[in-house]
């Protein structure tokens, strides 16, 4: 009985499924989610983003937009891992590896930007391929703890390998992708392009047979294995892909900000990515996108109250985990539930 109810819930970490409360019936998808994932909505949003620079070329708006795109790529790449039922607290480390590799490739080896981005994908992916088969055998809390420590180790490497990474001072003067892309508008389109392609790729992946296998793994690994899903191999593949994409996000950030240092890829950043996924919604790709908007736009309203922002995020995190694990993407669901309760 308890096994059956675990499977019915779209609950992350099946063994932790609570009786009622935070559980989300998998059969009833949130209404908000249904229309948000409609292709027409996605097309309209994409078109609006393409047209945005024509409404006025405010530098500030453009740079906030680029930050949003880069964060969205990173958050969506973490979402890939989250969907398999694992929460990585070291994802920013892979972003950092991508950033350093791309910066060093363009500055030291004088490689062109496209090649550097490829390296920024390959390097973290290769590392993920190395550690993935081992750490992905761990589940739940142990995976969280190992990735947490792993992120810390990578940060220690960034800080201490001074001759390559510049230590805690970081690397100044990371070049723009090309002189043309040094301008805000072309870079806006570059980042937008990367984001759209990567998000489309991830969305396509979730809609394929692989996506259904991923869901199966999250719901129950033993059951997935019995149904012929190569669990470990698929998890490693997804992990490698996710870390590679995070590397691309890191590379873009490096070439956009023109400066990288270890603190931008420390646990705080990993935590932000987790917050984005949890607050936005862990069960749908729309989640990290909404979460990114929330995380990037909210600070604009709370300008000058940086500490208060963190306090607020912390409280939101507690509330989401305690009461509605579906996040913003499931708000419609939540409102309906509240309405039904009020009607009684």
């Amino acid at each position, binding site marked *: 009985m308890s096994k059956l109810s675990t499977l019915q819930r779209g609950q992350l970490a099946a063994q932790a499924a*609570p009786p009622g409360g935070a559980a989300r019936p998998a059969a009833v998808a949130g209404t908000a989610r249904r229309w948000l994932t409609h292709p027409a909505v996605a097309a309209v949003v994409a078109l609006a983003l393409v047209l945005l620079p024509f409404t006025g070329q405010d530098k500030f708006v453009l740079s906030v937009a680029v930050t949003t795109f880069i964060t969205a790529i990173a958050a969506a790449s973490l979402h890939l891992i989250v969907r398999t039922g694992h*929460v990585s607290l070291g994802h920013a480390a892979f972003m950092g590896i991508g950033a350093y590799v791309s910066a060093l490739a363009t500055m030291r080896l004088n490689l062109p930007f496209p090649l550097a981005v490829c390296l920024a994908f390959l390097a973290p992916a290769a590392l993920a391929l190395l550690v993935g088969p081992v*750490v992905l055998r761990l589940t*739940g809390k*142990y995976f969280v*703890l190992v990735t947490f420590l792993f992120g810390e*180790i990578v940060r220690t490497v960034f800080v201490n390998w001074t001759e390559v990474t510049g230590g805690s001072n970081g690397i100044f003067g990371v070049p723009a992708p090309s002189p043309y892309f040094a301008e805000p508008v072309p870079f806006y389109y570059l980042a937008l392009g990367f984001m759209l392609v990567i998000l489309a790729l991830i969305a396509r992946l979730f809609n394929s047979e692989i996506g259904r296998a991923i869901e199966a793994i999250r719901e129950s690994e033993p059951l997935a294995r019995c149904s012929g899903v190569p669990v470990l191999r698929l998890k490693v593949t997804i992990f490698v892909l996710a870390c590679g994409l995070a590397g691309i996000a890191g590379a873009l950030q490096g070439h956009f900000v023109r400066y990288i240092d270890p603190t931008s890829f420390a646990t705080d950043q990993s935590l932000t990515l987790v*917050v984005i996924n949890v607050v936005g919604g862990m069960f749908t790709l729309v989640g990290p996108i909404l979460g990114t908007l929330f995380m990037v736009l909210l600070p604009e309203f709370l300008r000058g109250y940086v500490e208060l922002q963190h306090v607020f995020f912390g409280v939101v995190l507690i509330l989401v985990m305690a009461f509605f694990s579906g996040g913003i993407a499931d708000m419609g669901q939540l409102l309906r539930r509240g309405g039904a309760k009020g009607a009684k």
Partner: protein
Amino acid sequence: MFNSAVLTQVAVDGIGLSAIYILIALGFTLLFGIMRVVNFAHGAFAMLGGYALFYLYGDWGLPYLVAAPLAALVVAAAALVLERFVYRFFYQKMFQSMIGLLGLDMAIMYLAVIAWNAEERSVPPGTEALVEVGDLVFPAQKLIIAAIAAVALLAFYLFTHYTRYGRAMRAAAQDVEIAQAQGVNSSAIYQLAFFIAVFMAALAGGFYAQTYALSPFVGEPQLMIAFVVVILGGMGSIPGVALGGLLLGLANSFLGTFYGSAASTFVTFGAVILLLIFRPWGLLGAKEA
């Protein structure tokens, strides 16, 4: 450099560190063992303990042996409010507790930044006296820390083995439902365990602040210590905490002295990751089904 005088000195330092580590990790493992809660806010409570000691001892000048336990008591009593309004929703929900309590950690840390700003402070040591044994010299402060930690651990052991509530607590750790069926009031036991866990974390946080420094961000390294010790010993295992704390304290002291702190971080984290891969239930923990 490896002569016996230096080695003894390093070993004594290591035991002083171990005492702090064990105190921090004991509460962490207690919360995990009994409530199945991964307390990511543990470091935050230790940090608050540091501030409590800063005010009670550094500012108000209470006698040290009164100020240290009192500071921990104040933090633990205040934390009971959080038990009621936050922790209660996360009992027996391992996954939700991890993320939710990360949020609590963040909230407490930045509230501390707002309250006391981010600058580093120092808490004066309990005594400046030096103890000489033969040709070895160590600060008496280290011995006091180790002694208080030993007393706390002994009290905890006696409590859990020889008192009614302590045994109820152990029963709840083994199986909550069966314990309830035997008449154990689980929510009272949870409260008690939470109080003890925060008390020890806050006590350790005070010592940590005296040994290193105090700022709103000192919670994070202490949380990391709790992780490492608990993983080494095995999650939920109390003898495991003692073993893990001693190992980590001595290792940090030796590696830190001879090879620098970065090497120490690498070796300990590397060892922990290897251990997690081959023996995730830790050195003394019980294997989960």
